[in-house]
């Protein structure tokens, strides 16, 4: 019974979330375009599926994954877990001792990105319009790898206390240089994959990891250091996708030159 009430609450929130979108769509369709929507029944069923599906998805995450995930982030960053022999002084934990934190950050970044619904949507579109040249799974695995590396590096940044801006700007510089050399076809999609990785599944878990880490590491303030992990998670997939396309292009070129002579 309790479960049902919670679900209805989530459903209501999702509907409220969709309401402005629906208002814009319907308003323009009726007032500006003045055209009937083709297959209206099907579209409405689709919308219902999206809303109910998203509500169930969020409800399941809230109920099962988020509490456990945030608890684990807190436990992994707790000094009691890091200092097992009891001899080390708490405020001088070397950054290497956070090994399990980086491993967790990598794994959770990878696995939540694979499950991210918005990325699935963009990958499906990309495969269809590229005529299969970009595969759904290939794109998703590349993006997930980028997020994983980004979040692991971001955790390391919080532990060492290096300034966030330096990493972001270095990342931007790499993206700009890659853009010059990457195949033109992939550029826009690569940029987009940065924005889609961080929505429903990744943000809550990663934000909890960042804030827990900043609260647990001596000398860090959650306010100054706790944020920024999500920025890493949206920058690194861009680098990963550009690199993937570039490697693909180079492989194709060397293969082509082998075939020719």
């Amino acid at each position, binding site marked *: 019974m309790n479960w049902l009430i919670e679900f209805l609450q989530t459903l209501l929130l999702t509907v409220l979330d969709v309401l402005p979108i629906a208002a814009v769509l319907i308003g323009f369709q009726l007032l*500006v375009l003045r055209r009937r929507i083709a297959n209206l029944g099907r579209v409405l069923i689709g*919308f219902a*599926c999206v809303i109910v599906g998203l509500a169930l998805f969020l409800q399941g995450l809230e*109920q099962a994954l988020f509490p456990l995930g945030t608890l*684990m982030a807190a436990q992994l960053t707790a000094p009691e877990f890091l200092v097992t022999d009891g001899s080390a002084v708490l405020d001088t934990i070397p950054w290497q001792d956070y090994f*399990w934190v980086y491993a967790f950050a990598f794994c959770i970044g990878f696995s939540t990105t694979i499950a991210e619904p918005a990325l699935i949507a963009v990958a499906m579109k990309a495969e269809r319009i590229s005529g299969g040249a970009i595969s759904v799974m290939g794109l998703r695995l590349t993006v997930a790898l980028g997020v994983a590396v980004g979040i692991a590096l971001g955790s390391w940044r919080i532990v060492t206390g290096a300034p966030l801006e330096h990493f972001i700007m270095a990342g931007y510089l790499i993206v700009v240089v890659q853009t010059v050399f990457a195949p033109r076809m992939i550029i826009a999609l690569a940029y987009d994959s940065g924005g889609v990785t961080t929505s429903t599944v990744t943000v809550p878990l990663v934000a909890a990891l960042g804030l827990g880490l900043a609260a647990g590491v001596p000398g860090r303030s959650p306010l100054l250091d706790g*944020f920024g992990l999500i920025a890493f998670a949206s920058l690194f997939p861009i680098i990963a996708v550009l690199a993937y396309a570039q490697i693909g292009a180079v492989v194709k070129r060397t293969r082509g030159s082998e075939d020719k002579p």
Partner: protein
Amino acid sequence: MILASRFFFRTLLGSLRDLAPIFLVIAVFQLLVLGQPIPDPGGLLMGALLVVVGLTLFVMGLELGLFPIGESMAHDFARKGSLFWLLVFGFALGFGTTIAEPALIAVAAEAARVAADGAWIASDEHSLRQYALGLRLTVAFSVGLAILVGLLRIIHGWPVHYLIIAGYLGVVVMTRFAPAEIIGIAYDSGGVTTSTITVPLVAALGIGLASTIKGRNPVVDGFGLIAFASLTPIIGVMAYGVLWS
């Protein structure tokens, strides 16, 4: 009916495969690294079931509802030939979907607390709410503007990286002037504004438009709207921080 149920089960299998890694990571770290039992395994299983069914329905709904509507509206706008209304639509879509975004509401409240701690605003309830609302409007406006400019780009065929690099420059310049406390929040705000329902819709809109206009390639020109919409809020939030500090 048979076709629909086959579609459902194929999507269901896909969702299971997509979600398996998360459960594996959680189980391995909890049992092997932390060495603790899973609390409330029944609840976890129930939650997992909801997540799998939810993702399945969502992916089915994408194909049935969100993709077709985004594309058909792009075609209709192109046929109507009114640039003005297309741009108004793009702005409204960006603004409307962002202003109500729960993740943004959370970030805005957090930023208001930072501002109050920094004594840029009074720390009473009214000023906090005022500041948070102003921030949300700023971000929603930035996203609306981003979609508008992004649509103009598709129509004129400007290369996407000019816009993105200009956005990066904007971020770099603003970072120099913004108060240190707001920077992390600003960078994160770029990631939280693109919600799960907006992304497929905006992607379908861009691709639909690029495939309707002669001389545009849907792969080269159709993407890029989401990227730009996650850059402008970073600049917006930092500018807002500068104005108030």
